[in-house]
């Protein structure tokens, strides 16, 4: 009932932990059963280890948080040697989120990790780094170019993660599809800012950061809906999902699977609650599977 498929990869349920909000799984494994997830998208990795941005990196705003982690991570070698073997013990699909500062790095990363995981998620949307990330991801030509090169060398299906910080996200979705992406995931965080009026300073050291959480959900649902009209590859939807009702919205808008991010900080049990909620919803509305919901909005 809950099983979905993305380019031949079967997820036992459509819930994936969103990159950057779930570490390498290890941290949460002491608290919840990682087998509950259909998949886990690991913290974004780069070729070399990366220290990330200065503090403060986090602030809270109405309905969400702004972060500027800046891709702190131990680098691909440590990921492969120290983190992957642990994650492989669980019955869940592993999605490696990769981040290059230029095209060559994306290719190199894809070569190294794609034979070792179920899927890779090419993050062309990180708002918190100066080069690469969102800077590439805003330009459909660069999205096309990088996706194409990564596809050439990748041993597993390739998901391209898109940024919402553009006028028309469907242009990016179409570029990814044309270049051979197996799926797209959206949305990454929304570029945002908050100011402390007492000190008159920005609440984030880098001045701007990425907004996630319930505040961005309506934007994300709209973007999934728009992309669903324009591309034929599966869409993985995310942005502000806090409960099963939010998840159902994404399926109806056109998502085949969903990712949950910020909610993990608030309610580490969210995955099991959302899973049960989806199941009950399907039964109550007479649907046989999640697939029946995808894009099934009535306009």
């Amino acid at each position, binding site marked *: 009932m809950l099983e979905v498929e993305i380019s031949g990869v079967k997820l036992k349920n459509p819930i994936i932990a969103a990159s950057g*909000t779930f570490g390498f799984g290890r941290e949460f494994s002491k608290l919840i059963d990682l087998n509950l997830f259909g998949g886990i998208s690991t913290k974004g990795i780069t070729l070399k280890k990366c220290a990330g941005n200065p503090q403060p990196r986090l602030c809270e705003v109405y309905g969400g948080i702004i972060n500027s982690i800046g891709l*702190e991570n131990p680098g691909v070698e440590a990921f492969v040697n120290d983190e992957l073997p642990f994650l492989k013990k669980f019955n869940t699909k592993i999605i490696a989120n990769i981040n290059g500062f230029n095209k060559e790095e994306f290719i190199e990363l894809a070569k190294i990790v794609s034979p070792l995981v179920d899927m890779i998620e090419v993050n062309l949307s990180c708002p918190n780094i100066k080069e690469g990330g969102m800077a590439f991801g805003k330009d459909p030509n660069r999205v096309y170019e990088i996706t194409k090169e990564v596809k050439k060398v990748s041993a597993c299906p390739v998901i391209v993660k898109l940024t919402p910080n553009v006028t028309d996200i469907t242009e990016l979705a179409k570029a990814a599809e044309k270049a051979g992406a197996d799926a797209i995931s959206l949305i990454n965080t929304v570029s945002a800012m908050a100011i402390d009026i007492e000190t008159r300073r920005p609440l984030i050291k880098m001045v701007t950061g990425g907004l996630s959480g319930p505040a961005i959900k309506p934007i994300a649902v709209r973007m999934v809906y728009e992309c669903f009209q324009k591309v034929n590859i599966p869409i993985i939807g995310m942005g502000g999902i806090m409960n099963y009702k939010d998840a159902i919205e994404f399926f109806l808008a056109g998502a085949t699977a969903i990712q949950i991010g910020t909610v993990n900080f608030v309610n*580490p049990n969210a995955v099991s609650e959302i899973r049960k909620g989806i199941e009950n919803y399907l039964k109550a509305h007479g649907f046989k599977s999640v697939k029946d919901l995808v894009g099934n909005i009535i306009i």
Partner: protein
Amino acid sequence: MKLLDVEIAENKMIANGIYLLSFESDYLANTFKPGNFVNILVEKDSIYPLLRRPFSISFVKENKVFIGYKVVGKGTQILSQKKKGDSINVLGPLGNSFLIDKFNGKVAVVGGGVGIFPLLSLCHELKKAGNKIDVFLGFRSRSDLFFVEEFKELSDNLFISTDDGSIGYKGNTVEVFKTKIEEGNYKVAFSCGPKPMLRFLKSLNLPFKCYVSLEEKMACGIGACLCCSIKGKDGNMLHVCSDGPVFDIMEVEI
């Protein structure tokens, strides 16, 4: 570490804007070590505040857990309005703990403001281990004082200072500590307080080990989100929630 729904036993004001909250939890009371903290969801299904809030466990008594906190923003304001019998969701115990040992000589404990909260149980355990303890506490003003009787009982000497001089020494608690270093002949120091205070403490280049409990904005509390990173001495990233909150003061950039 566990996720627990607990029922508030008591939540009362103990000083100006300072509250002491307690609840029963056999699990937390048995696993807790001084320095540990918990992540409290002050309101379920809330949009603002959205995240959990981190608070040190001040002390435990039998199966009761006590958390002292200061009202500073929306989250702590909501928490202060909770009544006996209300339920809150608690994630813990989190983080590492202070080193407890019998030190051959005196121990100094230096606390400022809300940083004083985690130091009470530390003093309990240090005393139980057979140590002599000098305690230095800094408050803003006389009306902000809390836990003073408790610290008096556990310490050999208690030095109080206030910013406005309304009680005790006028000025910074680290200043007071500095004047006692020589005669105190300390073997180790423990501290928690605002960053400027800890920077001052670090600048003293103490001739003995000094362990500090740090604060950083946190989202997950368990090492997954990398929001609370600080730099270690060697440039490596450390996470206040999972590598700390207690660090050797010389091993971290403050």
